[in-house]
């Protein structure tokens, strides 16, 4: 059997690994538009010059050779013929498959703001190519503007600060990383970034960009009337699943490739995993989807049930935060909020009817992994009769006597 995988990020690589681990004789071909495999979550380390391109790889150096996987890099898929079971590449190869995994990810999105799309010095911060282009700009640029203070924008900002640029971050909402943090935990990061030289303009919007004679965006105008000078602009205003090449193939889409719980599309033998499905959320979920899609492609049956994606960890300047679930409940949700803090820690639990719905731990996050289980499985803690902050996995411990694997006693 021959399995073709489009995309070499978390989902694609984890699928390839899974296939080769259980059926080494299956032929696996990975097609990727990138030059080399790299972890998107480490791009800031590349741009900040803490690591080179090799240093942000998440696979072993000899991964493709040792696992016998064919690797077509710098190759863009431009078409898919589901009838004849082939994909077409930009250089006119028709590559046949028995089973296909689409793990082509997502691409960044430039909002239709006058002057912004036209500017030649606007970059996303999505893959190594973006980081390489930014790297070049950093050699001469002085003023950097980052649009969007989500995790990607903050990653870019931290790297640009590292390179000695003057960084201004512009954000529509009133706080940084507002999907992951509440006001208090966001303020802590904002302050740290400011101490390292960044400036923030929050609750404001870009309305236009002045483009100079050579096509570079120079002045960014905001709804408030403020204007910010820019030598380079990073756009971090969200991503869109990338699946242009499926047009006309009959694959069902709705702003993303639609898949069932088995990660199969509406067409037999074609599966999708990762950001292209619009449900990955974060790296670990994409890895898991890749693995599950692979197992299903090999003819076994495994369902993707761990869809819980409202989760993240943050580590900037050594300040670590765990964020899970519903962390900013609306008053009408009538949640109970417990706060515990000292000079190094801020901890918040959001509880409704005995079930924890959200957690923010800022500072010490050691040993906090079990909270995800409690939240996603909606475990009722009212009977525990315990200070909830003191909970640990020990309160739910059970051991399989035969294998010693842990289980949850709930």
């Amino acid at each position: 059997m021959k399995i073709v995988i489009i995309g070499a990020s978390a989902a694609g690589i984890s699928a390839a690994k899974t296939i080769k681990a259980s059926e080494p004789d299956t032929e696996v071909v990975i097609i990727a538009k990138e030059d080399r495999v790299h972890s998107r979550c480490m791009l800031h380390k590349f741009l900040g010059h803490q690591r080179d391109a090799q240093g942000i790889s998440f696979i072993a150096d000899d991964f493709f050779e040792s696992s016998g996987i064919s690797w077509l890099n710098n190759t863009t898929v431009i078409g898919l013929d589901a009838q004849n079971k082939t994909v077409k590449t930009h250089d006119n190869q028709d590559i046949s498959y028995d089973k296909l995994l689409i793990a082509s990810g997502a691409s960044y999105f430039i909002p239709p703001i006058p002057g912004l799309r036209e500017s030649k010095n606007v970059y996303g911060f999505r893959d190594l190519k973006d980081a390489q282009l930014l790297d070049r700009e950093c050699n001469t640029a002085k003023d950097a503007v980052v649009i969007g203070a989500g995790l990607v924008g903050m990653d870019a900002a931290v790297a640009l600060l590292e390179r000695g640029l003057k960084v201004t971050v512009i954000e529509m909402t009133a706080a940084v990383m507002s999907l992951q943090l509440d006001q208090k935990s966001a303020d802590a990061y904002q302050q740290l970034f400011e101490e390292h030289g960044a400036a923030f303009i929050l609750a404001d919007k870009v309305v236009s960009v002045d483009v100079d004679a050579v096509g570079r965006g120079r002045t960014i105008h905001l709804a408030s009337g403020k204007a910010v000078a820019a030598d380079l602009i990073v756009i971090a205003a969200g991503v869109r699943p990338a699946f242009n090449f499926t047009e006309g193939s009959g694959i069902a889409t709705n702003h993303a490739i639609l898949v069932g719980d088995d990660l199969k599309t509406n067409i037999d033998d074609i599966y999708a995993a990762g950001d292209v499905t619009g449900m990955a959320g974060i790296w670990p979920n994409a890895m898991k989807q890749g693995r599950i899609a692979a197992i299903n492609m090999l003819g076994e049956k495994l369902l993707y049930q761990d869809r819980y994606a409202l989760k993240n960890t943050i580590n900037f300047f050594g300040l670590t935060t765990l964020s899970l679930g519903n962390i900013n409940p609306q008053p009408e949700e009538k949640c109970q909020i417990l706060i515990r803090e000292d000079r190094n820690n801020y901890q918040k639990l959001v509880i409704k009817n005995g079930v924890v719905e959200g957690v923010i731990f800022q500072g010490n996050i050691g040993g906090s992994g079990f909270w995800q289980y409690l939240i996603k499985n909606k475990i009722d803690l009212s009977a525990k009769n315990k200070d909830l902050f003191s909970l640990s996995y020990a309160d739910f411990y059970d051991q399989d006597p035969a294998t010693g694997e842990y289980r949850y006693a709930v």
Partner: protein
Amino acid sequence: MKRIIIDREKCDGCLNCNIACISAHQEGSNFYTVDLQDPDAQARNFIKYDPQKGYLPLFCRHCDQAECVLSCISGALEKDPLTGHVQYDENKCAACYMCVMNCPYGVLKPDNKSRTKLIKCDFCDDKPDDPSCVKACPKKAIAVKEVSL
């Protein structure tokens, strides 16, 4: 593969396993010279006490389908194909702590001092015979067993 099997009834909460773990990861120290005030003195195991059920020592399970490995963004966490143990490569780690969030048993933690590394059980695979915690337990509340998955 080899696993540390826990018999909580036998545990007295003496913390010998804890100190043995710290010492095993503090170059050149032994049970008597180990510097517990060093900010790097973090154990990879922990003991919890419950008024009803008593003490419970907990260790990384080196899970069959390890969530930490599956969540690692850098390839720093990998399952060793020979031992089955989940090993950590500090040089690859990006200190994102996705793994801390995804270990369902809450055994992973960032290092206290720099928040640039992970504190993770290595089963003392670089040392001869059993893990240091198991050797240090006076009650035999923890024992290494060969398990098949």
